[in-house]
């Protein structure tokens, strides 16, 4: 196959071109990281800290509503995961089909496809307004990692109708410089295990 050669220490692989970081270890860590994290004793109550993360979630929603995909992707670590499970309790993605399970490259595929102009499910493109609320912040065992929980309500106008997609999201954010980047986003659609009409926007 045409895959780039395995990385050497001097030349880290570009996750936009090849996918070396999605491994069994990553799956294991991802599942562990998204289990039992919504623990009251770990809730961050500091108003300033909470506000910083609330702004991050709000900015993400705005960038997606404005189709600013490059700016949106820049909020994520180069090696990121975007995961919409197909069951309410988010099973093991190694043995369960997900609604979506994207690495960096597949997220870029998703954007590329919409931008071809030939994605009939997005021609004309959906317009969205996203409400994000109930933002909670949880500390983790690692001081530079936080878990965020928020509720979302996406109003999507497509094909002359407005419909709603709702659920909650879990963001795993990692300190990066003087800010935070998204390492993983888990999108828990309320109806993830039921048939959904034209789910072709970025959530």
């Amino acid at each position: 196959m045409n895959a780039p050669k395995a990385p050497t220490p001097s030349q880290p692989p570009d996750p936009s071109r090849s996918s070396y970081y999605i491994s069994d270890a990553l799956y294991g860590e991802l599942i562990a990281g998204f289990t039992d994290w919504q623990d009251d004793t770990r809730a961050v109550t500091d108003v300033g800290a909470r506000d910083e993360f609330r702004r991050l979630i709000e900015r993400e929603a705005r960038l997606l509503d404005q189709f600013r995909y490059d700016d949106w992707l820049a909020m994520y670590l180069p090696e990121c995961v975007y995961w919409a499970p197909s069951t309410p309790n988010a099973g093991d993605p190694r043995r369960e089909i997900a609604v979506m399970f994207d690495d960096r490259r597949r997220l870029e595929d998703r954007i590329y496809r919409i931008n071809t102009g030939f994605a009939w499910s997005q021609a004309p493109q959906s317009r969205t307004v996203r409400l994000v609320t109930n933002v909670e912040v949880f500390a983790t065992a690692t001081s530079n990692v936080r878990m965020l929980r928020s509720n979302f309500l996406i109003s999507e106008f497509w094909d002359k109708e407005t419909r709603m997609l709702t659920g909650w999201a879990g963001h795993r954010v990692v300190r990066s410089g003087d800010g935070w980047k998204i390492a993983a986003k888990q999108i828990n659609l309320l109806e993830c295990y039921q048939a959904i009409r034209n789910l072709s926007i970025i959530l």
Partner: protein
Amino acid sequence: MTALEKVGAPPTRLGGTALYDWDCLVQEDRAHRLVYTDPAIFEAEMTQIFGGTWTYLAHESEIPNANDFITRRLGLRPLIIVRDAEGKIRALYNRCTHRGTTLCRFDKGNSKSFQCPYHGWNFLNTGRLRGVPWPEGYAADLRDPKYNLAQVARVESYRGFVFGTLNLDALPLTEHLGPIATVIDEWLDRNPGGEVVVCEANRFRFKANWKLAYDNSCDGYHVAYSHRSLLETENRFAGENAKGMAYYRNSPDTQAMYMRYTGHGNHYKDRRPNLEKRPGGLWALESAHPGMEHYEAEFIERYGERAFSLLDLAGSEPVNINVFPNLSLLGNHIQVFEPVSVDETNAVWYGTMIVDDGSIGADGVRDINALRMRTQEGFPNFGEVDDIANFEQIQRGLMAVEDEWVYMHRGLGIPDRVKTNVDGTITAPATDEAFMREHFKEWKRLMQTRANLAIRREP
């Protein structure tokens, strides 16, 4: 042995006559728009097709243990598919015999019995009425079989695929499948132990008639256009023009792939001849998927020469096997079409994973499945969404009353293009609409026939 109960003609409607002249509605080269738009035809299909022929109900791996159940439908009939305490698979009507309430409202579970939430009638998962509250209030003998749950008269499995029909005259399932069973065998036998297990699904709802999905199932003509965004995405890096379904881009009819009609509305599209016949030939065709480079490198290190035949197990098998009216095995998916109304349908793309038969080892199976989940999510996310947008727009286009016909005559009348083989199967190039002409003949046959239908109840 359960008792049969014949299904007679439905109560006569005032002014009711035979619905249509079916020979007028479905002709050799075209089908009338009403076939897709008329609620009365849809209602007739729910008995004549979904009932009159073998219909896919479930996969045995969804109910692996005694007393497991899932809820499904046969046409619009709500069913509880159970594996009873003795291991027998039954398709119970999810309908209380008292007032008609559905008994079970869950997608899946494990239960020896089902109690009606309305008045408390309680049924064993064999379908037998176990008891009712305050039975002394009934003069009638509640042991009469008519109070036991209705069941689909005939339920048979082929290698894990469970089908049901109400038609007492239908051929035994294996005979009905005929030549398509061989292709199903090949689809299964490439997996360890010749087996797959269902593992959740990508589930779509669309506002269009169910047949538009079946008409698409073997269609090699639409790929380059309907899936243009996918083909461009799969080959977006410089130098790549052979990934995924790229072989549909240029003169698909001159390639080795073909379609074959095998009878009873069943057909398959075989893209396997396009492949290089070597370990890794399938894997080489795969476009980008999460984790593929990591796992490939790890497999080469761990398994050496054998790595590529293992990676092929995560690759998407290039064949579409379509069993009329509602099943399509494609790639590694078990796709099921569920009619909802004349202009609403679910397309459920069940994922499959491989099982450990001892030939690979638990770690290898886990890793192949981790890759296989990601390869399976690709097409539903980036391909099916666009097909479905087109199905919905066909339904909309067909609202133009005076413009009556849908054409399916690609390939018709060209000498030597469509070949009838000695076994009666029909072969044509990949973009030919012969498959659609043939499944519409079967559709018409079923719609014209008053089938010998029955339900069953425990005695």
